[in-house]
């Protein structure tokens, strides 16, 4: 990167040292709150901040007591060795014992859960009761997600859509987190979180429209299936590259902060594979340094296409990466919808009230294949898949709990599944029959206003179609 050639004048070194040193030391909760809540502080704060920065870096100007440079005879004095010292970045205590921090702690970070495998509540006092209405809505949504996945996956197999990705096994992460958020929270998804959009009111018809790329698709037929996006639902359009949404999410959170919006945060989803990308590091680091209201939710489902987590990273999962950036983190049982709900609610509160990032690792399992282009039986044992599909099914566990409460039964379940099934089939049929987008949409939204080049190309295309109508079947295209 940049090579700096410095002349040996002192003021240059001073200048360089003042940049970006030890913000950690000076920013406290009250400092940030004051400067960002107070409009006027915008005028005052530059001096304030600059002054604070200079203060902390004074330490770097080597105000070290000469006795620290003394010879071996002073090594016997314990009081000297117990002293700390101000390095750039803050005060550290010295130690005379050389020890490397182990790459693994003795125990893995424990995983928070509320419901055990039999649907019984085992949590501590921190658990807050969920209402019947909310619980049944959550279960209904999980069923809808599952049924939608089944039929759209089938549609791809039948050649009616080109591609699909299911969220099998991750329904609890999807719906549990969605239920804990407000509609003002801005979602930056990876691509396996359609349940969040579903919760917010995106209809089955709207999902199908995007998959078929028809005229009603909000994406105007420009994206492959499952790349949903809806500004109305505060759900940012999905793009395929992994982890690009993380720095973007931090930027949006910064925008929220500048707006002084105190009742909303940004929620960025990612998978386990995502944590290997450079953008993960940038996003996490920035979120911490810029102190923005964001909740990072990592769906650690064990597999990134065919790469198991043991080949993805060597850390204790993703939760331990948070503290490395100075970010509060928690691990939760991703197959326990209640636990996910509790944790995301709490994380959201922290992010908003303290205006800082939070990392949540939800442990779960990707029951389905990575996508319709994948056959996961080629790289993992079938009994492993079956085990997670049957014995560890998140819907089954949640259902046991709501049935115990008398809020649900077999009849309601099959009725719900039937109704939803009919709706999904209907939606697919309607979407399939609908016209494709107008050819003119090829040229719109490239820029705010089309440039001359684009207008010329569009005119040229129209003329070509008029001259050769047989090459452009009228029933699929229209101008």
């Amino acid at each position, binding site marked *: 990167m940049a*090579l700096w050639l410095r002349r040996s004048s002192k003021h*240059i070194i001073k200048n360089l040292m003042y940049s970006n040193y030890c913000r950690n030391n000076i920013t406290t909760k009250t400092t940030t709150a004051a400067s960002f809540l107070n409009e006027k502080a*915008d005028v005052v704060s*530059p001096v304030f901040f600059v002054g604070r920065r200079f203060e902390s870096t004074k330490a770097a100007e080597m105000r070290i007591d000469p006795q620290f440079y003394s010879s071996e005879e002073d090594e016997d004095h314990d009081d000297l060795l117990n002293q700390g010292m101000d390095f750039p970045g803050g005060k550290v205590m010295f130690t005379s014992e050389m020890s490397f921090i182990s790459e693994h702690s003795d125990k893995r970070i424990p995983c928070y859960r509320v419901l055990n495998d039999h649907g019984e509540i085992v949590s501590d006092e921190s658990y807050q009761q969920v209402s019947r209405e909310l619980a049944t809505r959550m279960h209904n949504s999980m069923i809808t997600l599952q049924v939608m996945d089944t039929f759209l996956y089938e549609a791809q197999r039948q050649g009616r859509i080109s591609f699909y990705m299911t969220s099998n096994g991750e329904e609890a992460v999807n719906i549990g987190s969605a239920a804990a958020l407000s509609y003002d929270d801005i979602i930056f998804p990876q691509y396996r979180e359609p349940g969040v959009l579903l919760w917010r009111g995106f209809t089955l018809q709207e999902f199908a429209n995007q998959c078929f790329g028809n005229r009603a698709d909000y994406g105007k037929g*420009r994206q492959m299936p499952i790349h949903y996006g809806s500004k109305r639902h505060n759900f*940012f359009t999905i793009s395929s590259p992994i982890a690009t949404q993380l*720095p973007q999410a931090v*930027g949006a959170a910064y925008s929220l902060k500048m707006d002084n919006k105190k009742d909303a945060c940004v929620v960025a989803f990612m998978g386990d594979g995502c944590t290997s990308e450079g*953008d993960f590091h940038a996003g996490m680091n920035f979120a911490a340094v810029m102190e923005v209201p964001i909740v990072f939710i990592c769906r650690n489902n064990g597999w990134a296409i065919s790469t198991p987590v043991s080949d993805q990273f060597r850390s204790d999962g993703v939760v331990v990466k948070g503290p490395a950036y100075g970010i509060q983190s928690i691990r939760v049982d991703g197959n326990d919808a209640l636990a996910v709900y509790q944790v995301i609610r709490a994380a959201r509160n922290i992010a908003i009230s303290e205006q800082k990032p939070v990392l949540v690792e939800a442990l779960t399992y990707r029951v389905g294949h990575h996508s319709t282009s994948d056959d996961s039986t080629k790289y993992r044992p079938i009994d492993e898949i079956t085990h997670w599909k049957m014995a560890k099914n998140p819907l089954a566990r949640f259902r046991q709990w709501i049935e115990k409460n008398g809020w649900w039964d077999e009849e309601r379940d099959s009725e719900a599944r039937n109704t939803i099934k009919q709706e999904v089939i209907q939606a697919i049929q309607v979407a399939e029959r609908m016209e494709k987008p107008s050819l003119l949409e090829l040229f719109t939204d490239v820029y705010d206003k089309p440039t001359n080049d684009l207008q010329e190309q569009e005119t040229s295309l129209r003329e070509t179609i008029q001259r050769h109508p047989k090459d452009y079947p009228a029933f699929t295209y229209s101008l």
Partner: protein
Amino acid sequence: MLRILRRKSLPVSMTVREALNSALDEEMAADPTVFLMGEEVGEYQGAYKISKGLLDKYGPRRVVDTPITEAGFTGLGCGAAYYGLKPIVEFMTFNFSMQAIDHIINSAAKTYYMSGGQISVPIVFRGPNGAAAGVGAQHSQASYWQEFPFVITFPSYATQCYAAWYGSCPGVKVLSPYSSEDARGLLKAAIRDPDPVVFLENELLYGESFPVSEAALDANFCLPVGKANIEREGQDVTITAFSKMVGYALKAADILEKEGINAEVINLRSIRPLDRATINNSVRKTNRLVTVEEGFPQHGVCAEISASVNEDSFDYLDAPIERITGADVPMPYAVNLEKMALPQVEDIVRAAKRACYGYVPK
């Protein structure tokens, strides 16, 4: 000093650096959603002092010193642009934008289209582009050295022109100013533009001083995007250039004048959208074309202009189109090699003469 015809010579002159600084200042004052971020933009006053004084005036929320991750802060800028802010992302040089090119193209340029028009990205990416300072200080650098007594130099792999790279991508606009008036007008237009804009400056021009018109001093002064400027009118041959090469083209035009060739110099100002109309109209008048750029020859801006003129004004050409570009090698550092790797005024003069069928040893 430059002879600029068709403009009243006025007492006010400013350096490109001052022009950019004032444009940033005025836009930030006018619109509270505009903010600047990049490495060294705040406390250090900018790696090239373009953002001098802005941190003190607007505070650290609007002038953000970022950690060293182009990919990170570019992505962050895109995210901020999605939801209501107008970021100006500064790259220390455009070579470092390579680390962020995924975000520039996929997160910025394509998003309006791929979201079905739901998410617009009013972001500006700016910074120095092309070959930077060699060892020999040029005259325009003298005052710069006195004021800022240290120089940032980059390894030779880091001195490339990116106009053609970004110019090939739909969804992004690419601007490249030459004079101070260009710098002010185009940067203001870029910041106000709802589309993502790549703004290619030139380090060697920062210290150069140009006269500016009265109109250019106005806080609302904007130049139109997608319009080239005819810096010098002529009848015999058209020379197109952008950024630093405009200065070289003008010098070449002066030399050609003495030899009886009247050259028309076009300052492109806008790489994308390219002002094909102005270029073609000029070629239809002069019938000969020399295109100049600092970047690599293959798939360059000159190649695009060449193709455009071939398509639209074939019958008007009296000679093959001449391209003067940088050499097809990574940029060497040694002064003598650097000189050979970049277009020089003599190259432009010789090309113009060739286009005019004069005898010139090639």
